[in-house]
């Protein structure tokens, strides 16, 4: 839910178009913040990712430089033509057509060069940056699937997704436009300053002195504005959260007659939001006109001062005109340079976070044996197994021997270590001592992927992906290279669904097996989700089956039917069943009772009841 809402809040904008009343959007460069531990290292790393496109990148840079230089030359050339006009009009000198044509031709060439280099460098940079981003995205996802599971215990899914959606995006945007535009902004600033100095040093000084003034003023305003933005962001969050609750809690809201109160509350929040919304967007608009005021006044000053110089003959009319054009030209890059440093730093901070993720340690895989699932007998043994999620051990020398084809039920209170047992069997986590073996072979001889061929499992945490029901069941089947989910035989899918008692409800859905599940499968009930996860496991015929609270949301009668189906399917398979309802596992060959990471009792239902120990106590309490 959290990841969903954070994604919703993400601002979408048509590239190249102003984001409108986006509040902070307009000055995001200036507001962006980020701290980088190793800016230089991150930058180098980023450039290493660019290495494949080194030449394209360099070419793009050269083109950007060319475009900026040409742009600086243009007003100067136009000034020359204006001077000829001025000469004609003031001194009645003859109009020198030859020079005009020549300058015109030069201008035309400059225009075309400017156009081509602008366009080409743009296209090249898009390709380079998009390629880098694509490869970074792919690297991230490959990494995701290679990380040990304990990594996910430490970091939230929302953080990881934001790494992909926000941080990577940040890097992409800066790479694509930030780099070239900052480069051209700097070149323009320097070039224009030089040209201005050449034309008239006094005027040049005058026009440049306002730059720091304007910069400081904008910076000051933005600092003042920050709390307004923050307040608005906070209120937006509060309002959205309230709306979410009002919609999701419809059962309570409607039937407890609290709709009216809720509406009143939402209404006043909405009014507050209105207030902060218009204020924050006003403030975000104000920063620019404020800067403009200084620049514009300066422009006027230059016009007067420059006019005097022309009258005095210190400055040519063409020079005057060119100077004014340069002043205007400063404006764009100037505004850009204001934000660029922060933008780049923020992007580097993002890149660093991404690289940190990509550098996370993976599990070392040592084994190289192959698993022939068909030949596995299904004997499983834990031999003095030690394990802990943290420094403290949960399992301290756990022993367990399971015969081929045996049906084992694991019971115990929450936190007793039932799921941990399964996690270790599946090698979701690495044991720190002892050994686990299948058919007498140490499982560390296999790579995790090979090992898992021996298992089919239904997890406590039900997960289906957004896609058709058909594909979701097919997901359990082994695919050979190049095979897709759609290549899985429909007969097999239907058969698995029937064994899981899911077939009848699927057939009742308007689109049957082609029904698309939404993200989180919110369009079917929890019980139905569990039936599908069971079907998904049943399609994979493996010698060892694990059911971890697979039927907790299914009614007991259906649960029994499913267990029958399982017996039909896998009479020879070894199976591990974790259940919270003791009633459904009484037929198991052996029941393992766990408490605080140790196996406290083992036996059949009858034996354990007669023993009158921990199991008997749990059983009677459950039935009281």
């Amino acid at each position, binding site marked *: 839910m959290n990841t969903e809402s954070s994604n919703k809040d993400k601002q979408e904008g048509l590239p190249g178009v102003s984001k409108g009343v986006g509040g902070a959007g307009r000055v995001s460069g200036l507001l962006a913040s980020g701290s980088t531990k190793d800016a230089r290292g991150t930058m180098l790393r980023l450039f290493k990712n660019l290495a494949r496109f080194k030449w394209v990148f360099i070419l793009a840079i050269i083109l950007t430089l060319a475009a900026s230089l040409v742009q600086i030359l243009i007003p100067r050339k136009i000034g020359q033509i204006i001077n000829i006009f001025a000469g004609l009009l003031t001194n009645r000198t003859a109009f020198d057509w030859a020079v005009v044509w020549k300058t015109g031709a030069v201008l035309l060439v400059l225009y075309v060069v400017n156009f081509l280099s602008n366009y080409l460098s743009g296209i090249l940079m898009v390709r380079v940056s998009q390629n880098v981003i694509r490869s970074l995205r792919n690297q991230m996802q490959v990494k995701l699937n290679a990380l040990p599971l304990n990594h996910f215990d430490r970091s939230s899914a929302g953080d990881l997704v934001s790494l992909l959606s926000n941080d990577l995006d940040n890097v992409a945007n800066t790479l694509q436009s930030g780099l070239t535009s900052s480069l051209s902004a700097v070149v323009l600033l320097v070039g224009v300053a030089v040209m201005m100095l050449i034309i008239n040093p006094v005027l040049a000084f005058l026009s440049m002195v306002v730059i720091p003034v304007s910069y400081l003023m904008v910076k000051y305003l933005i600092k003042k504005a920050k709390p307004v933005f923050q307040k608005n962001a906070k209120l937006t969050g509060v309002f959205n959260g309230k709306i979410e609750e009002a919609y999701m809690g419809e059962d309570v809201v409607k*039937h407890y007659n609290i709709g009216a109160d809720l509406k009143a509350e939402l209404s006043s929040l909405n009014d507050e939001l209105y207030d902060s919304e*218009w204020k924050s967007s006003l403030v975000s608009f104000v920063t620019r006109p404020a800067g403009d005021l200084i620049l514009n006044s300066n422009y006027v000053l230059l016009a007067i001062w420059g006019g005097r110089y022309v009258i005095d003959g210190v400055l040519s009319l063409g020079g005057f005109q060119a100077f004014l054009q340069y002043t205007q030209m400063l404006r764009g890059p100037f505004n850009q340079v204001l934000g660029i440093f922060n933008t780049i730093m923020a992007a580097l901070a993002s890149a660093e976070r991404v690289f940190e993720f990509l550098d996370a340690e993976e599990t070392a895989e040592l084994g190289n044996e192959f698993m022939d699932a068909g030949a596995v007998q299904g004997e499983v043994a834990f031999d003095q197994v030690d394990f802990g999620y943290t420094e403290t051990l949960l399992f301290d020398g756990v022993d367990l021997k399971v015969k081929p084809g045996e049906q084992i039920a694991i019971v115990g209170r929450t936190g007793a270590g039932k799921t941990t047992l399964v996690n270790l069997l599946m090698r979701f986590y690495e044991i720190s001592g002892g050994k686990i073996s299948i058919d007498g072979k140490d499982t560390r001889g296999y790579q995790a992927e090979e090992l*898992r061929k021996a298992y089919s499992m239904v997890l406590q945490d039900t997960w289906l992906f957004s896609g058709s029901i058909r594909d979701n069941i097919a997901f359990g089947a082994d695919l050979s290279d190049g095979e897709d989910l759609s290549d899985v035989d429909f007969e097999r899918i239907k058969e698995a669904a029937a064994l899981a008692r899911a077939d009848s409800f699927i057939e009742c859905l308007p689109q049957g097996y082609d029904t698309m599940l939404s993200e989180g499968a919110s369009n079917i009930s929890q019980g139905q989700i569990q039936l599908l996860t069971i079907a998904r496991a049943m399609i994979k015929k493996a010698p060892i089956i694990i059911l971890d609270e697979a039927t907790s949301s299914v009614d007991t009668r259906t649960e029994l039917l499913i267990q029958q189906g399982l017996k039909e399917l896998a009479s020879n398979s070894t199976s591990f069943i974790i259940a919270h309802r003791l009633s459904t596992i009484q037929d198991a060959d052996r029941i393992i009772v766990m408490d605080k990471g140790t196996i406290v009792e083992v036996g059949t239902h009858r034996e354990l009841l007669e023993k009158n120990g921990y199991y008997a106590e749990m059983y009677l309490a459950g039935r009281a």
Partner: protein
Amino acid sequence: MLIKYAKKYSKLIAGQLIFASVWVFSQLMIPRLMVDIVDSGIMMKDMGAIVQKGLAMLSATVLNIASLLISIYFLTRVTAGISRDLRADLFEKVIDWSKETRTGFSNSTLITRTVNDVKQVSTLIDLSLRKIFTLTITVIGALVVSFTLDAKLASLILIIIPAIFSLGLFLTTRALPQYSRIRLSIDRINQLFRENIRGIRVIRAFNKADYEVKEFEKATKDAYEANVKSESTMMLLSPLILLLTNILILVILLLSGGRAEGGTIKLGVLIGLIEYASISLSNIQQFASIITIIPRSKVSIDRISEILSTEELLQIKEDSMGSNARGISFKDVDFYYPGSRRAALRNISFHLQEGETKAIIGSTGSGKSTILKLLLREYDAYQGRVCLNGKNIQTLPREEIGRMITFVPQSSFLFSGSIRENIQAGKKDAADEEIWAVLDMVQMGGFFRESPEGLDTQIAQNAVNLSGGQKQRLSIARGLIRESSFYVFDDCFSALDYSTEKKIREAIREKLADRGVLVVAQRVATVRDADEILVLENGEIMDRGSHQELADSSKIYKEILASQLKSQEGEIR
């Protein structure tokens, strides 16, 4: 639709438009004054004129900034105001909707429409009032001034404008489909990544990492291609228009060359024309790229108006004839979910009196909860009658139903806020003693007495800091604090262990002895004490009777019983 909302703000809009016009006017004045500085100042060597015009320019600059600020003040009030009104109308409407009316609108789309789509619409309003309006009058203004300066050269600008406009439009519309493709592929990328994290164990258990990587690479490739395609098109736009502008300027210069020889053009005019040409063309370019945002906003507008135009389907009918009978009664009720061809309920009849407890038991999907939805009028029966105290439920206002029936839903939804506030959702202004009393009934009193914040203990959004059982118990407590004739429990004991459930059931029995209670459950233990148990299968009542009767005669009930109390069924009798 927007016009209706804009009406309320017509004064502010008028203010915005007036000041935006002033802004454009002063903006255009500046180059015009420059023309005068050059022609009557510099060329005439008249310093006085230069200073005079310069001061005029300075006032134009100040006027320019001032009018911009004022117009933006009006603008932000309008956009924020319309957003507020839209949001208010949306939630006012949606909150009251029955489930039948909600069919087809998931919670997430309702939230998106109230939050994101409104935001999108406000962007559109901002763009139309600010950008599109000012761009248009700027271009017109620039043209008018150019014509007063020199009609012949100005007509050159006029000719090239449609060309630039269609070029901009052409390129942006070509890139547009790519933009939605980008958005879709980015959504897909994020979704796959999110799902990959969520399903990491399942993916590893089934060795499907390679498959996930393949799917993901498809999505990133798609995003790459769409980005490159759209950007390659869009990258062409501004350099190309710059090129055309520059060429236009060059042509103006060359054409004026001949005119200048004849003395029919002034230098200032020439400089002014160049300036106005640049202004017009860059505005036209912006205009062309901005109007493409309209189709995107149109989608949001449509999504919002879809909600605003959806009226509650279950209207309150005229009170035809009511009897004075007491209790809840279902008479021959058939029901189909909207769009479904399979009956969810068939021929359901039962009666519940005050002082009685009835229960409904059945498998997942047998229709248990559906009966309750009809009772609460979330849907209307397809056939038959649902009556409450002798009145057809379709004639009763929702508040009336809410007053008579307390519903404890299956999904124990809690609000973020304190425990006290959550329980008070059941009874406004309930005193702390009352709250403790119901918390004790659901066996949570001790838990909160021990917690340092007591009733002020905060519940996080989605109650992530509580276990499933705790949520269910609080939800039950919130129901128990209400006063009503009937209480309906929808499978809301499922996450509780048997001994806790038993204690809660006993407390409920005691408190609600003289009320009508309807319990829906999967567990036999939950229903066995009811006066009558209805056994539901595939939407039909297959058997009914007391626990004892059903345990003797009902095949389905026996199966359920067997699955839950396998070895020692004798003991439970």
